[in-house]
């Protein structure tokens, strides 16, 4: 799809275009632009990356290599609901792995995977910095303090069953 067409059919592109303009079409702002694109879409769809590439006049390899370098950026949808398990040292010491095991048992999802119906995505984080609350799990941007596997499974079920 041509860039102008994409800009016309998708209002979210406007947000990205504004960011590109703010950075004076310079490649320095690439990471900032990718952040706003991921905020708008939840992940980085290929056609959006192509759009950014053309606007910044960069080789696609440069954009692609940057996207894949950073953990925060994702090339595929993270799912309607996300369950992010912190695996920082404090959470590790306090049994984050048990929570991950239980999630895998219940939903057959490993970290980085999304369920077939796109309802649930499971991720791990290096450390969310809430070590006093270990083990910590983030369900749809809400931190669950001192999590235990059973509670988390119930909460996930409530989320994916609810309309």
């Amino acid at each position, binding site marked *: 799809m041509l860039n102008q067409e994409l800009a016309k059919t998708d209002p979210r592109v406007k947000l990205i275009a504004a960011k590109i303009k703010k950075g004076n079409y*310079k*490649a*320095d*702002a*690439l*990471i*900032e632009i*990718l*952040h706003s694109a991921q905020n708008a879409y939840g992940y980085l769809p290929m056609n959006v990356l192509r759009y950014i590439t053309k606007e910044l006049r960069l080789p696609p390899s440069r954009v692609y*290599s*940057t996207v894949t*370098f*950073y*953990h*925060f*950026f994702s090339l595929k949808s993270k799912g309607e609901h996300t369950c992010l398990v912190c*695996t*920082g*040292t*404090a959470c*590790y*010491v*306090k049994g984050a792995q048990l929570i991950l095991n239980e999630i895998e048992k219940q939903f057959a999802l490993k970290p980085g995977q999304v369920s077939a119906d796109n309802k649930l995505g499971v991720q791990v*984080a*290096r*450390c*969310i*910095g*809430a*070590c*006093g*609350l*270990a083990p*910590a799990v983030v369900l749809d941007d*809400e*931190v*669950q*303090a*001192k999590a235990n596997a059973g509670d988390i499974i119930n909460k996930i079920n409530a989320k994916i069953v609810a309309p």
Partner: protein
Amino acid sequence: MNRQDLQTIISAEKEKDQTNKNKNKVCVCCGASCISSGSEEVIKKLQEEIIIKGMNADVEVIPTGCMGPCNQGPLVKFLPDYTMYQKVNSTDVEHIVQNQLIDKKPVENLLLFSDSRPQPFINAQEDPFFKKQMKIALKDCGDINPEKIEDYFVHDGYKALDKVLFQMSPEEVIAEIRQSRMRGRGGAGYPTGLKWETVYKYVNDQKYVICNGDEGDPGAFMDRSVLEGNPHRVLEGMAIAAYAIGANKGYAYIRGEYPLAIKRIELAIKQAKKSGILGSNILGTPFSFDVEVRIGAGAFVCGEETALIASIEGKRGTPKPRPPFPAESGLWGKPTLINNVETFAGIAPIINNGGEWYSEIGTPKSAGTKVFALAGKINYSGLIEVPMGTSLREIIFEIGGGMQGNKAFKAAQTGGPSGGCIPPAHLDVKMDYESLISLGSIMGSGGLIIMDESSDMVDVARYFMEFCMDESCGKCVPCRVGTKMMHDLLQKICDNNGTTIDVQRLEELAGYVKETSLCGLGASAPNPLLSTLRHFRHEYDNKIEQ
């Protein structure tokens, strides 16, 4: 705004504070941990309750940054009495307000540490958790509203910046920092004054100041808490550094995982610009300085200076060989000063109280205080600041309230994936740069994870190696391949398939990777392995024999 306008505002704020001196203040911790435990609801309920009781003229509710004992949150603190309550629920609020503010009798069963100490303290400052601490970088954190620049003004905010701009030359500022003997709080412990002097000496019409807030060590949350609790202090430190080295542009590079810290520093920048503290011709002087926030995208290696610079330039965060050091050729090839968040937070107190004052705190080689993020199998986990040289035993058993469930202490992990484990035999080690290195660990940025008898130390080594393997940027072979090989060997031993030869190979590999990696990530990746081999060799042997 010029200097006089600002001083008028500051003295008006201070006067207002004086008249409100006897007013009760209710501080509610709004650090990320307490918010996750529900402190925002507590604030709402408190405000409602105070209006219901008709006390809104005499009581002020203040949302603050981190107060310290994070796992006891949400925390509520009543000033001036310094009575603190823990695990406060919105349903407790009515009871607390009635008893604390009206009947003047504290609610015993909700006092801080009431469920773990036989005799909790009504004045929390008398509790060993706080009594043993000395707060410099965290001084106003937990007492002021981080989203109001006026609160910072009342606590002598930007006084140090005013002092350097109007009374000191850049050389004098650097001399003061050198005299303080402060060392960089990011991990390596390089003398801060020396770093500033080096950048100062390079002549260039464009220089940069970067604040490294890419706190990547798992189990560390000091920078996050400082940024969330007192962002203006960091900005003030950056501005003083910029004045000293001759920079006019700064970047605050913050981890993407810390949305609240990003929000608060952005707000602080906006407020400071409005007050004429950032921008062009600050306070009417020729000095101009502007700060922009850059958000990290989740790469541990970006904590390394040259990788961080690449990331700010919008590139893959891979390190470059040094020299040239960033001091000579950093961001866009210009001389660049990079300091850690906690380092910048310590600058204003040094300027206000003098370098000599700071140098007398701590130990001869490690001056000042250090913030630690205390976590793991310990009763009170959270954020603490102690003078350098405080013993590990004091930190765990006095400040941290001892081991959870009275289990036996097994190891303290410092320095994250670049550090090591301290065994029980060295509980009396003084926490300073040199003593930790002599035990095969490092100070690092301040993450301190306490492990009990249930931790398997070989698996701990495997855990950190897995981390380094994933986070290796892939640029140099020793790190990219070496961490993978070491991880696989450790996994083999953890699966009880290891042999003595595997341990020998691990030791050999560790040496190669340490010596030949390009940057600090690879050079320090073998540390957790080597320190567990040194202090917990029998655990490796047990797994091999099985």
